[in-house]
């Protein structure tokens, strides 16, 4: 059984999805979604344990030997990302049951859960596979289901938001498949490990460099690096709350992973940083993302949009870590994948609670909510502090490594920018806190606290924000080892 863990990671949600669709029963579909999500977490955790103790796991699908057959290959880097994705899925899935009943048309609920499971399978597939074309296939699975999930938002603008995401996402995916095609032309292989061996011989060829460009732009579109982020704010703002919580904490993280895998494992750090000057390209973009998007977030009145812009800024932090071209910088990136998933998950879920009760997350509608929904808003405050990077929350840990990485390179102005951006984050979090706690409540007097079915999953993530903020030793060690694997190119 345990030998087949890598394939189970993807197959469980992939097979659970049609089951949901065929059952046509909202409750049953929800239970299947929850169980499948928990199963993926169990698989991911045991994979991480195996990889930490025994090293790289290679799984040949259908016993076809690579490089011809498709190989699933798990090292610390993707085991780590699998844990992130499945953790979020396990927390969001139970939350989804109640949240979706409120926000999605009743007859579509089984299909909603099916789409969610497909999306989860796609994300896990991108992460686990060791075959570049397989990456593209799973990318399409996750993207198409994500478009469907977003389009199920209550407001009509969800449709245009989903369409816009579809256009941009398809452009991104097309760029990626063009890049993969060019690599295949040059090397005749689609296996990642194989490519990593073959590519150095053809480094000088222009085709390889063009492939690099296509893959880079494609990935950056999917991970919403400024200025390719335009699809993201509306998609997050208009999607059902549970979908936003899920996608914000997983989809962009997996896209960042994809970028790291292509650039550092397949092309290798020497090519990326030495030949292509990746660090010099990404640094200004990342800084621009961090500063401009934090500024834009300050002026948002819809809190989900505010958090969406904040996400684009936070993605800037992840890319910034990559641009340091050092183990410390990559540790920061990999830690922030996890940490940002925890904090944004918690924040979007808190907003989902607000939507459940008052139907809006406009900042004026939230006036006085601190008294009426104390647990929900307390969750928002803790998540917000984490976003700012206050000590004892996970946000501080990633920021610590990020600043350390900047100072190691001697780039102290970058460190200053990162810290100033934290102050900007403080400003936009503060605006919400002020509305909820310091403005007199208007509107409906009868607003009550959100049901426990929503609060419990939210507080699980809030608790994780604190738990991994107070004791980050374990996560930091995993991230550091993963960063070393990426930098030295040992792995698939």
């Amino acid at each position, binding site marked *: 059984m345990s030998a087949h863990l890598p394939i189970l990671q993807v197959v469980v949600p992939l097979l659970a999805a049609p089951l949901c669709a065929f059952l046509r029963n909202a409750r049953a579909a929800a239970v299947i979604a929850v169980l499948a999500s928990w199963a993926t977490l169990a698989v991911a955790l045991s994979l991480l344990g195996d990889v930490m103790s025994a090293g790289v796991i290679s799984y040949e699908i259908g016993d076809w030997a690579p490089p011809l057959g498709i190989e699933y290959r798990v090292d610390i880097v993707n085991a780590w990302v699998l844990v992130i994705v499945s953790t979020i899925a396990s927390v969001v899935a139970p939350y989804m049951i109640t949240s979706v009943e409120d926000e999605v048309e009743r007859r579509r609920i089984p299909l909603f859960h099916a789409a969610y499971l497909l999306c989860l399978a796609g994300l896990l597939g991108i992460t686990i596979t060791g075959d570049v074309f397989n990456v593209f296939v799973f990318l399409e699975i996750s993207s198409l289901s994500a478009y469907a999930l977003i389009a199920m938002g209550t407001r009509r603008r969800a449709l245009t938001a989903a369409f816009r995401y579809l256009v941009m996402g398809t452009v991104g995916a097309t760029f990626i498949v063009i890049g993969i095609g060019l690599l295949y032309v040059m090397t005749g292989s689609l296996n990642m490990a194989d490519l990593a061996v073959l590519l150095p011989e053809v480094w000088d060829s222009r085709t390889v460099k063009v492939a690099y460009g296509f893959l880079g732009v494609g990935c950056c579109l999917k991970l919403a690096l400024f200025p390719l982020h335009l699809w993201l704010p509306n998609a997050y703002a208009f999607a059902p709350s549970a979908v936003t919580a899920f996608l914000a904490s997983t989809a962009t993280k997996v896209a960042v992973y994809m970028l790291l895998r292509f650039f550092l494992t397949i092309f290798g750090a020497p090519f990326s940083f030495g030949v292509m000057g990746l660090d010099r390209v990404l640094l200004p973009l990342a800084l621009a993302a961090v500063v401009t998007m934090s500024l834009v977030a300050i002026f948002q009145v819809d809190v989900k949009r505010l958090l969406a812009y904040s996400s684009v800024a936070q993605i800037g932090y992840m890319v910034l870590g990559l641009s340091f071209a050092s183990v410390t910088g990559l540790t920061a990136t990999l830690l922030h994948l996890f940490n940002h998933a925890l904090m944004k998950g918690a924040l979007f879920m808190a907003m989902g609670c607000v939507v459940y009760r008052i139907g809006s997350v406009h900042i004026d509608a939230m006036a006085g909510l601190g008294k009426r929904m104390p647990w929900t808003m307390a969750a928002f405050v803790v998540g917000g502090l984490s976003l700012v990077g206050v000590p*004892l929350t996970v946000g501080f840990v990633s920021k610590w490594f990020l600043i*350390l990485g900047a100072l190691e390179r001697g780039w102290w102005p970058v460190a200053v920018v990162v810290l100033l951006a934290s102050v900007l984050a403080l400003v936009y979090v503060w605006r919400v806190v002020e509305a909820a706690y310091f403005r007199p409540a208007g509107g409906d007097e009868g607003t009550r606290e959100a049901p426990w079915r929503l609060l419990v999953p939210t507080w699980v993530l809030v608790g994780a924000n604190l738990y991994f903020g*107070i*004791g980050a030793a374990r996560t930091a060690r995993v991230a550091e080892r993963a960063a070393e694997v990426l930098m030295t190119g040992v792995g698939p």
Partner: protein
Amino acid sequence: MLGLSLAVPVAGAALIVLLRRSPNAREAASLVTAGALFAIVLRVHAAVSGGGRPSLVLAEPIPGIPIALEAEPLGVLFALIASFLWIVTTMYSIGYMRGHREKHQTRFYLFFAFAIASAMGVAFAGNLFTLFVFYEVLSLTTFPLVTHAGTEKAKRAGRVYLGVLLTTSIALQLLAIVWTYAITGTLDFQDGGILSGRAAGAVVPVLLGLYVFGIGKAAVMPFHRWLPAAMVAPTPVSALLHAVAVVKAGVFAVLKVTVYVFGIDFLAGAGASVWLMWVAAATIILGSLVAFTKDNLKARLAYSTVSQLSYVVLGAMLANSWGVIGGGMHIAMHAFGKITLFFCAGAIMVAAHRSEVSQLGGLGRRMPVTFAAFFIGTLSIVGLPPTGGAWSKWFLGVGSLEAGQVGLVAVLMLSSLLSLAYLMEIPLKGFFGKAEAGDRGDHGHDHAHGHPPGILRWSMAAIVTTAVGCVVLFIHPEPFHRLMTMVTGQ
């Protein structure tokens, strides 16, 4: 024992919430907690005096950087002051809060206890990271106290308060801390400093500047605006937190960083602190000058605090043992002096409903004890015998000469004259000024607004205690002096 110094105030906070239905029991819980905390700090003091360094690791958020407590003499000094004055302030609060009919008194006592717990964390922080954590917690826990009144003005002030304190700490102090870690690979406080011998050149003065300005609670200009803003808080908060616990946490952190992160010999050798000496000197003079222009009593005291805090910063920047001893002792001396002044200001506000200096004419004849205490407090702030303030000014003066900065001695003299002028005006007006027209009524004594006189007696006891404390510290400064000589190793 160190763990208890955090746990006791937090447990006290829980008790305060549990007993919220009965104000008498609630206040009794506050007093008992404060007393217990002081007893614990005395035990720690005994251990440290005997040459021990009790320590405790609480958690390890980032590998190699634990949240750890370690008691050393400077921290003990700060903890002694803060915990003793907490007892006195609690006594005072009982009279003030009831006399002034403040709302949400449970919340008030609750966050007060949290603030003290964070101050203890600052005092006993075993490394820079721990110091930073408790420093931030202190900012956050005092915020509800600053905005206690809940008015628009209080909210605005609260924004300035958090804005300045969090911005400076995140943008400058945290940068300095990570930078220190990048250079040295450790954040532990060590005798002789961790940067000593590891950093050189222009990095040292820049880094020191990041610390001094980044520790916004030290209120070095231009990052002092939060302190006058915080004066909207109820007077006990201004007295204990914004004359003792919060601001002293700031200057204490500056001293601690100077002594244990840089090392005074290293700083003196590198000459890295000279420019900051003059920044501190400028704050001393400018703060005094602004204090002159303030008619509101609490605002005047606030700017006086801004000015006085820079004495401690100056002591640290002198980077010799006289300066550090003077700075450390000034933490104690200024605490007693300034808390007395704030207590008096609050008493005047509750009993006579006066908040402006110009309204105080003749009031001293009706409130003789209050104004006498104000007089003693003033002497201590100015630095005249027979009050404790004389000692710290003495050591700071010697330290300035030792550092070869005769100009700074002139600054100290000038500032003493200025503070004499703007503070002495108040008791003089009270005792010898003309009472305002239409003010012949007997506000001061009958407490005509219906407070039982017994309650105000608690406040008066507090005022007398701290005023007597100022004098006792002149006769008997030995305990604090000995702690400081342990710090400098003289």
